[in-house]
């Protein structure tokens, strides 16, 4: 039934190929003069090649959705970092890139970019760019970066074809190629503009597996070398290579246990492991981890085990006596296990071999993260997968997967064992973390392809024997074509899925206008571009770490923290600044030399995952922060910097008809404090929909002051005399007078620049900070001014409201540590 149903579609897919058949036959008749008709084998090849070409194109164009709907641009956060580094690589060359110390991020620490990233993606894009430029294609590097992921997705379909062919037959290969091309779980990570490591890494992962299986099947050193190179590419591209280096030993172990040890396996594994390890060590970020880290030890153990196996086989061959051999075996095994255990123990104890990381534990045990590293549990990408995501990402494949497993078990071989193990382990990991569905996708596609191909093949043979009608040209390729057409109805779903992914990208937010027209909130880019154009080139911007990569890439300004999250203390400092009172926050910001603070606020547009949510609501979940209670209950919250910066002057704005001014649409409440005063910060820029707000740290000067009267409070000082003002820009360069200076009392006193300008023309000075030292003497009569009357009012009136914070607020700020599986 299924076959008859799919006939017309099948016919249509073959139509172009049949026309090209005649064309090609024409060509061949003139060229080779052999025969006018194609042989069956040639026909099959032609059909196969044309199907593969179509799949190749299909995989590419399904991923162009975001370019067609929006524009050719990089999406999300990490891709912006990758884009920036690629730009650097193409402009400055590889050597500079390798030694790049980036002072624009993690100010003032900086980041050694060359040594802390997986360069595979950038180098790939740069090589493609240089290649295209060499061929005189005047492309921009951005376009190359945007299309890298779809291009590699297309390549992955080819690898999937060969892989399917290797483990089952060409039919399964073709179906696998089609499924990979349209599987939503993979599309979501490889759409145009999603310029991330995974886009390249899935290709590398599948390539490594394919070449390894090929090496195991053939026992050829060349394929083993190929898989080592594939592994090297994978290591250079993505941290997920750990999956390979653990799955392959596991697979070898299973083969050993099930008695499938062979010389082919020995050659394949040893060549792949030794070469792959040596090559991987060339990547600076990975370094000597292959011999030092606990996560890589399994591979090494299996390597030694293989040698032992081989050795035993040799000894067995030499001895020939079974009893002697068994005795020897016992001794050797005991010794080997003992030596191995001691080596591992000593290595671990001495710190030479690092223990497993929390990330690795959390992968093995889903409950581990919740108890030990709440931060891992908190990031949405690392949540355990819901059933619905399996449904969305795999669709019908979810049902085909068990069927495929059945066929694999039915026709067990070295290759099918591999794909079964790959499928089962990756499915387990996909269940642990949403993000790892991506790794499982190729396996699921391949196993499902086996199911489809085997079923159709069985069905056709069944039909053929029943009707006894001999059909011409029903070959493996044709059955593959049917398989591909059967999978065609799946395509409608990926488009929808794809759309939802694009909307989730946070560079701009499309929305529906009042008249149903599409409105794009392009506030992020508005703010970043403002920063880029209208702030000093060396300005430092403090923001939540999420926006770090985008600020450096689009705004071209130095950030304090970014998405790399390699230094939790630094992030915690910023987090603390954001969730402190303005005075304290100001101290922190000064110490970090911050010039601008950027906050994301969704109260006007109803965009709920803004900074307030990140700091207060999520913070509550992570058990470190105070609860966010909007109107009257949480008085403290209303004086924290994050709150103040988000809601500054928001109380004057009517956001929704029929609601009071200051109605927060994201949280659906009216804000409690509508009269927010900022003391040290001033609004520098707010985007048109208020999504991004940028504040400038008030220009502070150090004033050298002569003062009269001693006192603990600056307001008691009767007369002050301003000697000199030093701009905050050269704060550090200005010599601070020693406190022991006799007869003078140089003070360090802070003023806002506004006031200082006025004070020079003999008017007002507002005193705010209160640090000074030394004895004071009356010395001069210039610019005398009573200080007590001009003292800032804000502090006194606020003082009662500024209740001491509850114990433990803004303490453990370590919840941020990003798990970044990358």
């Amino acid at each position, binding site marked *: 039934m299924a076959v008859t149903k799919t006939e017309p579609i099948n016919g249509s897919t073959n139509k172009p190929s049949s026309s090209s058949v005649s064309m090609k036959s024409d060509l061949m008749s003139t060229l080779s003069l052999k025969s006018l008709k194609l042989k069956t084998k040639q026909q099959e*090849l032609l059909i196969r090649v044309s199907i593969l070409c179509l799949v190749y194109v299909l995989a590419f164009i399904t991923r162009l959705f975001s370019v067609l709907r929006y524009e050719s641009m990089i999406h999300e956060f990490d891709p912006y970092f990758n884009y920036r580094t690629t730009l650097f690589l193409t402009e400055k060359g590889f050597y500079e890139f390798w030694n790049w110390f980036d002072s624009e991020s993690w100010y003032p620490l900086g980041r050694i970019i060359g040594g802390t990233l997986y360069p595979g993606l950038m180098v790939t894009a740069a090589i493609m760019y240089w290649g295209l430029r060499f061929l*005189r294609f005047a492309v921009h590097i951005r376009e190359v970066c945007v299309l890298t992921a779809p291009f590699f997705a297309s390549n992955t379909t080819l690898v999937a074809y060969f892989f399917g062919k290797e483990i089952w037959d060409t039919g399964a290969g073709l179906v696998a190629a089609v499924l990979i091309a349209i599987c939503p779980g993979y599309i979501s990570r490889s759409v145009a503009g999603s310029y991330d490591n995974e886009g390249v890494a899935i290709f590398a992962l599948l390539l490594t597996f394919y070449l390894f299986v090929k090496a195991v099947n053939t026992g050829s050193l060349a394929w083993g070398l190929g898989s080592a190179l594939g592994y090297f590419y994978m290591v250079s591209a993505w941290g997920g290579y750990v999956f390979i280096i653990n799955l392959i030993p596991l697979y070898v172990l299973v083969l050993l246990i099930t008695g499938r040890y062979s010389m082919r396996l020995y050659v394949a594994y040893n060549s792949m492991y030794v070469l792959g390890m040596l090559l991987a060590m060339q990547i600076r970020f990975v370094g000597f981890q292959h011999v030092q880290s606990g996560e890589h030890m399994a591979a090494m153990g299996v390597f030694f085990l293989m040698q032992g196996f081989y050795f035993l086989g040799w000894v067995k061959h030499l001895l020939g006596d079974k009893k002697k051999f068994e005795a020897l075996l016992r001794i050797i095994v005991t010794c080997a296990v003992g030596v191995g255990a001691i080596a591992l123990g000593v290595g671990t104890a001495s710190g030479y071999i690092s223990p497993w990381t929390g990330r690795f534990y959390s992968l093995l045990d889903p409950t581990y993260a919740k108890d030990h590293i709440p931060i891992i549990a908190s990031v949405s990408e690392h949540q355990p997968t819901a059933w619905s995501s399996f449904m969305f990402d795999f669709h019908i494949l979810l049902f085909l997967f068990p069927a495929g497993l059945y066929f694999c078990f039915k026709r067990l071989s070295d290759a099918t064992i591999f794909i079964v193990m790959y499928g089962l382990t990756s499915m387990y990991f996909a269940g642990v973390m949403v993000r790892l569905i991506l790794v499982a996708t190729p396996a699921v596609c391949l196993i499902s392809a086996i199911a489809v191909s085997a079923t159709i093949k069985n069905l056709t043979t069944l039909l053929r024997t029943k009707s006894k009608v001999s059909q011409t040209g029903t070959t493996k390729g044709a059955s593959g074509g049917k398989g591909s057409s059967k999978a065609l109805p799946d395509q409608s779903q990926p488009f929808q899925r794809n759309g939802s992914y694009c909307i989730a990208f946070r560079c701009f937010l499309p929305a529906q206008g009042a008249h149903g027209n599409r409105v794009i909130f392009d506030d992020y*880019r508005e703010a970043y571009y*403002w920063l880029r*154009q209208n702030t000093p080139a060396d300005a430092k911007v403090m923001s939540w770490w999420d926006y770090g990569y985008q600020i450096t890439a689009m705004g071209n300004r130095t950030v304090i923290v970014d998405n790399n999250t390699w230094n939790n203390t630094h992030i915690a400092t910023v987090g603390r600044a954001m969730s402190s009172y303005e005075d304290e926050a100001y101290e922190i910001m000064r110490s970090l030399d911050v010039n601008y603070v950027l906050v994301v606020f969704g109260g006007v547009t109803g965009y709920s995952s803004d900074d307030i949510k990140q700091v207060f609501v999520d913070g509550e979940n992570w058990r470190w922060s105070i609860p966010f209670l909007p109107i009257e209950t949480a008085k403290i919250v209303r004086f924290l910097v994050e709150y103040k910066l988000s809601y500054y*002057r928001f109380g004057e704005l009517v956001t929704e008809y029929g609601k009071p001014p200051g109605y927060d649409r994201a949280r659906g409440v009216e804000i409690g404090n509508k009269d927010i005063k900022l003391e040290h910060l001033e609004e520098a820029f707010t985007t*048109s929909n*208020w999504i991004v707000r940028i504040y400038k740290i008030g220009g502070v000067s150090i004033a050298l002051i002569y003062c009269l009267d001693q006192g603990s409070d600056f307001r008691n000082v009767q007369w002050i005399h301003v000697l000199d003002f030093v701009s905050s820009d050269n704060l550090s360069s200005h010599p601070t007078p020693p406190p022991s200076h006799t007869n003078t009392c140089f003070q360090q006193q802070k003023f806002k620049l506004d006031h200082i300008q006025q004070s020079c023309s003999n008017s007002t000075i507002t005193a705010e900070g209160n640090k000074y030292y030394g004895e004071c003497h009356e010395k001069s009569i210039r610019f005398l001014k009573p200080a007590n009357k001009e003292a800032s009012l804000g502090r006194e009136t606020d003082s009662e409201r500024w209740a001491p914070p509850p114990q433990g607020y803004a303490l453990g700020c370590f919840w941020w540590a990003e798990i970044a599986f990358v």
Partner: protein
Amino acid sequence: MGPIVIPCSNYKGKGQDILAASSSNNQIQILNAERRIDLSSHIVKVFLTLKVENVGTSPASEIFLAFPPSQADQLALVKAQAAIGKKKKKSYVHLDVNPTQLPDAPNGTKYFSISLLNPLSSGETATLEVLYILTHSLEPFPAEISQLESQLVYFRDSALILSPYHIKQQTTFIKTPSTKVESFTRVEPTKFAGRELKYGPYEDRPPYSFSPVIVHLENNSPFAVVEELLREVEISHWGNLQITEHYKLVHAGARHKGVFSRVDYQSRASVKGASSFKHLLASLPPRVHSVYYRDEIGNISSSHLRTDYRKSELEIEPRYPLFGGWKATFVIGYGLPLEDFLFESPDGKRYLNFSFGCPLAQTVVNKLTIKVVLPEGSKDPSAAVPYPVEQHLETKYSYLDVVGRTVLVLEKKNVVPEHITPFQVYYTFKPIFMLAEPLMLASVYFLFFMACVAYLQIDISIRK
């Protein structure tokens, strides 16, 4: 002729020089001079009507205009025309204006000479109309303003027209953008009414009379200055003219100081952000297609295109409103049908006829670079531009280029909208070159398929 008294401290020139200068020009005198200065935008337009008379004996073929050196730097354009005929049948003839130097210029005065069509014989009179445009001549004061303040500027000039000739009667009118004028120098008779400030009439002023005045007025018109504009015009003989324009825009008015409050700006942008501007209007040629407006970080979604058969208007909005000192860089690109702009001259050469200048309305371009990218294989490029420009040649490699395309680069400083006039670029091109790239592609594909066929047909294994 007696010694001339210069009433201006700036012009403490040596009496001898002035005497010499004036003596060479004493055969011309100006009967009546009327000057209208339009300050309504940041581009200052001055309309000068001169009625000159030859009081000497020999015929005069040139009339000199004098500018103080500070103004000469700001001068973007000087145009002159002569009125012919009586009132009813009045028509205007364009006259050539060229910068010249007189040997005895007092205090670095700069001159422009207007070449008359017919030399002015003794006793004859002629009426000349001069338009000159000054840029960057309004100095914001205070130099920094906050969002809520409106922008005040200084305009400096002389109440008396600087001229190498004796002027019998002269009047100066200054048109202000609003009625709000903070202060102005009085040189009696001076009158301010409505939006017009009137200096004069002054009678019988000797050559090089100068009386500096300063007007402090409100001017909230957009001070849109393009610091650098690069226009790339790429000719494709397949029928398309591709224009790419790179702008570096800046608000050149009083610098923005302190906070930018979105609440204030949102509530009443015209009052609480009066000095800022948000929209720009670019007038593009008709039949424009595939217009884009973007910057380094992607597409800017706020633009509108209106087209009709006579012209196209592109209204663009930078990502954020521009306050004083704020910058924005962006790129506008569009395609045009080639047949509207490329023609064949009688001598077999082809020429491109395209407009010079910046398509944005009411903007000053500090440095304009026009790059005309000729198709690969074209030869002997030459340009005919109505203004003095710097020219040189470059080579550019675009898609599938082997030898590269010749690029003719034209550069000009200080360009105002009045500069928008057509210019021509002539070159020779053989149509056969059009086929080079398609043939190249075709042969690559052919070779590829041949290789495939060969691979499938030839057995290259060693074993038999």
